[in-house]
């Protein structure tokens, strides 16, 4: 294996992952390795040299490199970045804007925060490169106010870059001016959607609007505007320094480079991972993630957060890229990966995500505002044991109507967790409505607790903890539960040292 830390000289070794090193770090290349508050540290890893390189050639060359690299947007949609820059570069305007989307609203995702906290200069540099490429002298970072440390480090990076003349007027004597301002978001998921984000930056309500026109045509203050995700930007300096060919040699045919994921949930090695596109789900779960804790069986992983779907234990050999995930009824999303094991109920998981989107809908259009509520209600009905087969049909029908009629991506993708669990875990839905059982033992309304008289030692602990005193029995004799009064709190099940309490 090549040396991992080749911090010397101008030459970068073209490192590739191998059997023991499954990850490839491009976007997170400096995170944890440099002092994010020291501009000199960044300059020491060839910081701002990509900008300097870009400034030596006409802007169209930068656009061409990004285009040839095959880089696609890491914020979720996967739109080709170079193409977007080209559109904005060709639109004539007296002012254009370069915006960085650091809203990161997907629950469980924190890739962008890690990059901003660990390597803020790479974003500043990349935004300036983009500004030069499209002809923008102004940039803005839209970041949620809940990220105070990221904001502090980003601000310091911007101040230091200005003091060094790497941001501001006449950068590196090239005549190119570029400045960045920070705009704060209040932490609404919908404000991550680019048109809502732009409105929010303009001081209006964060509501999406119809596209076209796309921001690259008419965005911030109706000027051509590029909105790119933090991770998208983080790749740019590496692409400029190492070349488009290098980047496009990594990944699959239509998805180049790497993707950063936040691996969370029922997985041993939770954390940030950056893997080449095309890695299999099995490698991520079993090798990098080291499987589910407690040797539980892996059940599914939700990618794409509330907009995505589940990949299941049958999909372990699926190569992760934009197109394969969509073919599986999920999506890349911004990089949340929530792992579930055999103890997770997929109907409850769908309900969890619907609860989130129901809260986060902006309310502008009916299918999303009212539809999310109705979907949630049906799921709540099913998980509390009052559902019928008819409800499952309703879920399906309503989900596809919302998908077709909602205005923005939030509403259009909101039914995905339902559709994907219906597709992959149909039996679990049926078990909830027909047998009134939750196979994973999660939905409390569908559980019954009982005591196995053969195992019970009559210690009485369960009777002490039962909040409604519905457990009775003589000392040292088998106890029993009065099911009619049991509120299914699970305390007895947790407390019994002899595994005598049964959950079914």
């Amino acid at each position, binding site marked *: *294996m*090549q040396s*991992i830390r*080749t*911090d*010397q*000289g101008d030459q*970068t070794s073209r*490192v*590739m*992952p*191998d059997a023991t*090193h*499954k*990850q*490839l*770090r491009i976007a*997170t*290349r400096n*995170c*944890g*390795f440099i*002092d*994010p*508050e020291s501009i*000199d540290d960044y*300059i*020491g*890893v*060839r*910081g*701002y*040299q990509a900008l*300097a*390189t870009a400034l030596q050639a006409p802007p169209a060359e930068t656009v061409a490199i990004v285009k040839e690299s095959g880089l696609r947007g890491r914020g979720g949609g996967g739109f080709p970045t170079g193409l977007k820059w080209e559109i904005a570069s060709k639109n004539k305007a007296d002012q254009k804007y370069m915006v960085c989307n650091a809203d990161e609203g997907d629950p469980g995702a*924190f890739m962008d*925060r*890690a990059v901003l*906290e*660990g*390597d803020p200069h790479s974003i500043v540099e990349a935004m300036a490169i983009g500004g030069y490429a499209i002809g923008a002298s102004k940039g803005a970072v839209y970041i949620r106010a809940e*990220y105070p*440390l*990221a904001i502090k*480090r980003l601000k310091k990076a911007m101040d230091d870059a200005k*003091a*060094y*003349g*790497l941001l501001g007027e006449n950068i*590196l*004597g090239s005549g190119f001016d570029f400045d960045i301002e920070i705009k704060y978001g209040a932490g609404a998921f919908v404000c991550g959607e680019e048109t809502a984000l732009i409105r929010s930056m303009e001081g209006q309500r964060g509501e999406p609007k119809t596209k076209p026109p796309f921001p690259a045509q008419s965005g911030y203050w109706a000027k051509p505007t590029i909105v790119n995700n933090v991770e998208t930007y983080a790749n740019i300096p*590496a692409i400029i*320094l*190492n070349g488009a060919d290098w980047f496009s040699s990594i990944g699959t045919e239509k998805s180049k480079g790497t993707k950063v994921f936040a691996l*969370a949930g029922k997985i*041993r*090695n939770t*954390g*940030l991972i*950056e893997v080449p596109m095309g890695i299999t789900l099995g490698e991520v779960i079993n090798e990098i993630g080291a499987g589910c804790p407690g040797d539980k069986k892996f059940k599914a992983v939700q990618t794409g957060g509330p907009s995505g779907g589940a990949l299941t234990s049958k999909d372990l050999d699926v190569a992760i890229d934009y197109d394969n995930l969509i073919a599986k009824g999920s999506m890349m999303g911004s990089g949340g990966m929530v792992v579930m094991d055999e103890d997770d109920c997929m109907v409850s998981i769908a309900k969890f995500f619907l609860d989130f989107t129901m809260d986060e809908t902006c309310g502008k259009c009916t299918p999303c505002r009212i539809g999310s509520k109705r979907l949630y209600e049906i799921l709540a009905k099913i998980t509390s044991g009052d559902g019928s087969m008819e409800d499952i049909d309703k879920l399906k029908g309503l989900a596809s109507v919302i998908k077709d009629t909602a205005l923005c991506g939030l509403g259009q993708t909101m039914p995905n967790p339902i559709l994907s669990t219906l597709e992959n875990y149909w039996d679990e839905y049926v078990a909830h409505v027909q047998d009134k059982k939750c196979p994973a033992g999660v939905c409390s309304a569908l559980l019954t607790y009982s005591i196995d008289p053969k195992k019970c030692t009559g210690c009485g602990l369960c009777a002490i903890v039962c909040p409604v005193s519905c457990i009775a029995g003589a000392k040292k004799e088998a106890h029993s539960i009065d099911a009619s009064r049991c509120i299914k709190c699970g305390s007895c099940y947790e407390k019994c040292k002899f595994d005598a309490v049964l959950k079914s």
Partner: protein
Amino acid sequence: MTKITSYDELRQRCADVKAQKASLAKDKIIINVSLATCSIAAGGKKALQAIEEEVAAAGLQDAVMIMKSGCMTYCYAEPTVEIAKPGAAPVVFGDVDEAKARALVTDYIVRNEPVEGVIPVNYVRVAF
């Protein structure tokens, strides 16, 4: 801060930093503490303080350089601390609570004894 006005100056500054880092790495033990939001929440600042105290107690101020960086990506093992001894490959330690932070100085650095919780490197990195 003096402004950098050309690519050549920028290259020169880069070479200077690299040279400075290389000589630091040759002479000093570099202790790199991860201080991202999540590392701090897990106790990264406590680990940092404990390390600083032990370094002072052992009179190692001149032999050690303490550095603060961002996310090292191992959420499951926060707080994380990386130690690079001169001439040796850097080693990342996970779950560095206060006691382990002290042990890293007293045992790993001073007495050259192993300390548990080493996180194996499982990535390759594009380093410039």
